[in-house]
């Protein structure tokens, strides 16, 4: 718990606000990932870039988004991750776990550990986006509506 206190002090007592901002950035990044993937699968013409550029941007954006997601998840795990009530908090934990399960599946495909999983990548990616949306809804949305 001292880690959370130190972080909160470091951020001028605004740890939660920073989590809200970073979680929103992660959600936005996840949305951009879907758009870029749709582009390099040639299922969409948006954004108007080449499929190669879309693939590169997908990788860079994915790395940045994942880094932010891990940072936020860390503060959840060492801080207020314990309580399983109200239901919102429990669901937040469930979707947080689901994100990393889906990431494990995705990287199992990308790293050729699960070759037959190629066809499931769009579904896994969509699942990731929906999970990030659910995480946002069970944290940031609650923060905003409680204000």
């Amino acid at each position, binding site marked *: *718990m*001292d880690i*959370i*206190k130190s972080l*909160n002090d470091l951020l001028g*007592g605004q*740890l*939660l606000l920073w989590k809200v901002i970073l979680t929103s950035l992660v959600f936005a990044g996840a949305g951009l990932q879907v758009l870029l993937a749709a582009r*390099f*699968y040639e299922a969409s013409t948006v954004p108007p870039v080449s*499929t*190669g550029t879309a*693939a*590169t941007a997908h*990788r860079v954006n994915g790395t940045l988004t994942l880094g932010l997601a*891990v940072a936020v*998840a860390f503060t*959840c*795990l060492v*801080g*207020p*991750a*314990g*309580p*399983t*009530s*109200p239901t*919102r*908090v429990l669901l937040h*934990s469930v979707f*947080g*776990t*689901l*994100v*990393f*399960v889906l*990431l*494990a599946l995705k*990287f*199992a495909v*990308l*790293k*050729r*550990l699960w070759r037959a999983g190629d066809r499931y990548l769009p579904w896994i990616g969509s699942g990731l986006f929906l999970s990030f949306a659910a995480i946002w809804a069970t944290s940031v949305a*609650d*923060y905003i509506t*409680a*204000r």
Partner: protein
Amino acid sequence: MSDVAEPRTASLAGVLVVLLFLVFAAAGPVVIVWERLGADTGSGAAAAAEEGGGAGGGGNTVGMAGLKFQPGTLTVAKGTTVVFDNDDTAPHTVTARSGGTDSGVIDPGKSFSLVAASSFDYFCSIHPSMTAKLVVTG
């Protein structure tokens, strides 16, 4: 996809990355179970404290547990010292909605106290859905 340079064979690094994500995935449930076990152990101590007039038993104490302030509304006479006990597994704050009073982070097992001067609505700035009210009379 053909523009993306993906490894064609499985590698040790790939296995490690996948394992790392699985460890992250397991971390949440493990922390919850771990803290739940700790909370179960701690609940006995809390009950003992309550028998002795501790959290929830006194008329000037607000407990924090299960992401709730208990009681939701506490009425005390002006000048009374009000104690806020964090009996939860998460850190909380007592932050006045209108500004002024702010406890800062109260870690689990720690307390915060104030001398009641006027009524105010307050919430936990870490968990904004936690709200309560202090009513001061006299």
